């Protein structure tokens, strides 16, 4: 279970996170929505330990990640995978090598076993036959799929998605949403999805939390947020300003 307790972070005097507390239930998909620049990605980077909080803590399976360094931090990261907004595939490696990068580093699997994993994961994300391609040869949607395949290759307990549908056309975005839902059903991984795409949030989220001006202003189910009458939530959900 992931718990975020009173998390605060400032950059150059600007408070980005103002005491966020959130519980992420196991086996479900929690979607964090909010307008651009409200601190969603910063929150995600704290969860995986890429940033250190000024105050507060992130607890993963009873371990406080914000106080871990070096080998112990890498150890806990082995059970977390991240799908970055930019996909962040290594340009110098083929699709197949990108997928098995973590496995090559942390396991002693041989080439035939690794190839089997590559084929299995590429089949799951519906990209069969692309193992030998370089990332530069892929479209935006394909890169996202490979990033998802890389994320699930290590069989993580948690997956964090940073804006998985941003920059994609509606059809491709819908396919990515369906893929996230299908993987969720099949693998039962605890997922946190950070997005400002409400269609996506309603489709994939079991729980939705809304972040605005560095604070969580709403927590509930997709149905509850749709019917919420709180002004700031309503403004974002319905896409207009209420005086």
């Amino acid at each position, binding site marked *: 279970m992931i718990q975020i307790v009173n998390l605060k972070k400032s950059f150059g005097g600007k408070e980005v996170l103002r005491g966020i507390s959130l519980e992420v239930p196991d086996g479900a998909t929690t979607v964090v929505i909010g307008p651009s620049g409200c601190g969603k990605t910063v929150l995600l980077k704290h969860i995986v330990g890429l940033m250190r909080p000024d105050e507060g803590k992130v607890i993963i399976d009873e371990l406080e990640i914000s106080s871990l360094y070096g080998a112990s931090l*890498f150890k806990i*990261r082995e059970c*977390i*995978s*991240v799908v*970055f907004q*930019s996909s*962040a595939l290594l340009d110098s490696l083929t699709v197949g090598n990108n997928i098995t990068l*973590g496995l090559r580093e942390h396991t002693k699997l041989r080439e035939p076993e690794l190839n089997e994993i590559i084929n299995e994961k590429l089949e799951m994300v519906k990209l069969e036959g692309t193992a030998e391609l370089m990332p530069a040869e892929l479209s935006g949607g394909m890169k996202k799929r490979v990033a998802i395949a890389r994320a699930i290759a290590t069989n993580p307990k948690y997956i964090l998605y940073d804006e998985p549908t941003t920059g994609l056309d509606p059809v491709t975005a819908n396919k990515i949403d369906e893929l996230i839902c299908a993987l969720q059903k099949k693998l039962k991984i605890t997922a946190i999805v950070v997005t400002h795409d409400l269609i996506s949030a309603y489709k994939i989220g079991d729980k939705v939390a809304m972040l605005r001006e560095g604070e969580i202003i709403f927590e509930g189910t997709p149905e509850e947020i749709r019917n919420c009458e709180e002004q700031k939530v309503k403004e974002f959900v319905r896409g207009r300003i209420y005086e």
Partner: protein
Amino acid sequence: MVRVRTRTTIHGHEIMKGILSYIGEVTLFIKDFLRALPKFYKSFGLIAEQIMLIGIASLPIVLITSFSCGAVTAHQAMFQGKDYMPDIYVGMSVIKAFMIELGPILTALVVGGRCGSSITAELGSMRITEQIDALETLAIDPVRYLVVPRVVAAAIALPLLTVVSETIGCIGGGVCATLIHNVKPLIYVEGLRFQFMSHELWGGLIKAFAFGIIIGLMGCYHGFRATGGTEGVGKATTQSVVSIFILILLSDFFIAQIVF
């Protein structure tokens, strides 16, 4: 008057703060590198790949600069010592200049400009496109995966390239001395052997090793610290080349004091 002095004081203070913070950051980066270095055996493939990129790919430019520099050295030796210097000293001048100074420094500046900038640009792009963050989230130490192979490869490639540079420099000097100044080939070769001291060769190679470490470390440091999109990568690349050149020239002086 008072206003001017205050401004100057603040300016000087900020510059000092900047220099000290730069030194501090580089020191911490070197500490991270030394912590990751013992696991270099995990990156043999990556080291070999980097030796190819830094060493083999730099060969043409090292050959061209060394040949022409050797020819210029021989020409200058003949020109300066015209009428009173025996021909045997031409070969000696060329080989000593190359072993002690020209070989290592020329190679380091050429490779530093070529590879230091490319290392920074590559790692800087990886930084701004979150590829380095991705490595961290895959529980892979980016310093071990990206920095160690590049620094180790540069430290291996530089002495090897320096040996090539010294050899080609002597050939260039020989071509100039024999074809333009009519020095007999055997006398030129005898000059190369005359007063040969092995510690000059080793001293030059120690310099080259140190320069290789500087190129690898500073190239990686600036790439890792790149921020602000493609413009930031451009700035980091410029800073990287400038810092590599300054450090090579400074360390050249101090190593020469210790070795020779």
